[in-house]
């Protein structure tokens, strides 16, 4: 597996898109810091961008990489290599290089700015950790979609729809249901609904760590009670891990049964 990971990783690191992605975060980090002049505010702005952009890039890159490396995969399948190693290696190659672009691209400007001496270091690390999780989750989901769809166009379509659903439509439905059922106590309902969407989960996790939950009203207080405690924090982290592990497991399961 590590050999496959190595080749996929090098292949991606050499590609133009990894640099573009890295440079984008680098520029974003510098611009935000020098416009805001405040690490905490920069973290909030970054969160808003990361929460939407990271899943999108993870999904698109994952699908694109799978379809583009089909020939390479077929070459590998005839070699004495385990099937699960091939797909796990490729997946980790994609997710790893994307995560590296994110962490380095944002990390460098923040370290240069003097993050290590500021109090926002925990918030910032949490931002990077959730960013990394979102990359892992959405790359795994996109590999699932690509493995189940031979047709490239269909695969791309489903991947984009998935992103659109989790990043935009899900929130819409969530809000609508909150308005519709406003007569009823909704705190537990919203807690659970949040758990089932990794994007919402990450957003809530970061927002509540940033201590601006007072803005969120009563539900915010319930959320703060849950996510603010170490127990809630651990449960959300576990949920993110589950969101990562289940798609990876399914990816390996489908790949085992697939004909090439």
């Amino acid at each position, binding site marked *: 597996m590590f*050999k*496959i990971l190595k*080749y996929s990783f090098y*292949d991606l690191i*050499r*590609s133009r898109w990894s640099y573009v992605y890295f440079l984008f975060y680098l520029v974003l980090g510098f611009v935000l810091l020098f416009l805001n002049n405040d690490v905490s505010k920069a973290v909030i702005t970054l969160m808003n961008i990361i929460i939407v952009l990271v899943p999108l890039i993870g999904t698109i890159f994952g699908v694109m990489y799978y379809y583009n*490396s*089909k*020939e*390479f995969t*077929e*070459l*590998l*399948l*005839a*070699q*004495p*290599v*385990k*099937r699960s190693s091939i797909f796990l290696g490729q997946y980790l190659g994609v997710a790893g290089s994307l995560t590296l672009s994110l962490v380095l691209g944002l990390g460098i400007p923040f370290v240069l700015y003097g993050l290590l001496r500021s109090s926002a270091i925990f918030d910032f690390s949490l931002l990077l950790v959730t960013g990394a999780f979102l990359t892992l989750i959405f790359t795994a989901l996109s590999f699932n979609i690509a493995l189940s769809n031979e047709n490239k166009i269909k695969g791309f379509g489903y991947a984009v729809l998935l992103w659109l659903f989790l990043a935009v439509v899900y929130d819409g439905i969530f809000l609508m249901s909150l308005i519709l059922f406003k007569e009823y106590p909704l705190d537990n309902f919203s807690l659970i609904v949040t758990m089932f969407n990794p994007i919402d989960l990450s957003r809530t996790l970061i927002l509540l760590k940033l201590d601006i939950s007072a803005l969120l009203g009563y539900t915010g207080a319930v959320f703060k009670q849950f996510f603010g405690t170490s127990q809630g924090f651990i449960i959300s982290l576990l949920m993110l891990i589950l969101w990562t592990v289940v798609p990876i497991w399914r990816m390996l399961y489908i790949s*085992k*049964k*697939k*004909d*090439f």
Partner: protein
Amino acid sequence: MIIVDNLYKKFGKNEVLSALNLKIEEPGIFAILGPNGSGKTTLIKSILGMVVPNNGHITLKGIPIKNNWKYRQEIDYLPQIANFPGNLKVKELIRMIKDLRDMPADEERLIALFKLEPFLNKKLSTLSGGTKQKVNLVLTFMFDSPLLILDEPTTGLDPASLIHLKEWVNQEKAKGKTILITSHIMQFVSEIADEIVYLLEGKIYFKGTKEALMTRTNQKNLEHAIAAIATTPANV
């Protein structure tokens, strides 16, 4: 060496292999022939574990291949169409496959034989079809495994390379290897093959020597014998 027992494979509603039985015990060159869509590539890919059969067993050297991958160490496979990752250089691809297989390899002689030196530093996407096929051949022949599977090895090769290919295959046969070849070029098959395995509608329709095939079909050359075989009654 290879025993295929009662193999079934369906792609959707299309039954490609149905109750296929094949036993290849001795070394030699076996030509797997059959009309388009008769299941040749599916059979080969099943042996390689790339296609998962719906039913049936395949054993290689007595070891069942299901859920196994180490047995591929014993196989050198030449895929039908040389589709390689385009952003790699020829040299890098060869190095990578060597690294993955972790076996001694003899690529230099092959590179010289097929005159690939000028292409070593070129990217695979810039190569012509014939040159890609030569790279494909180098990747397959550079290891020393007891079973060779060649899917349409002659595609796109110039006459000189074709001669080299035949020589190389014969040389491998002399080492006591089992070699499976699919091809539609009957001249190539008649020159090289010891035995013919003829697939029709997902079954082995005929298995035997070239001579047996020609006497059975009352034909004097292999091309006509192959064309005639499906119309003569079966008695395998």
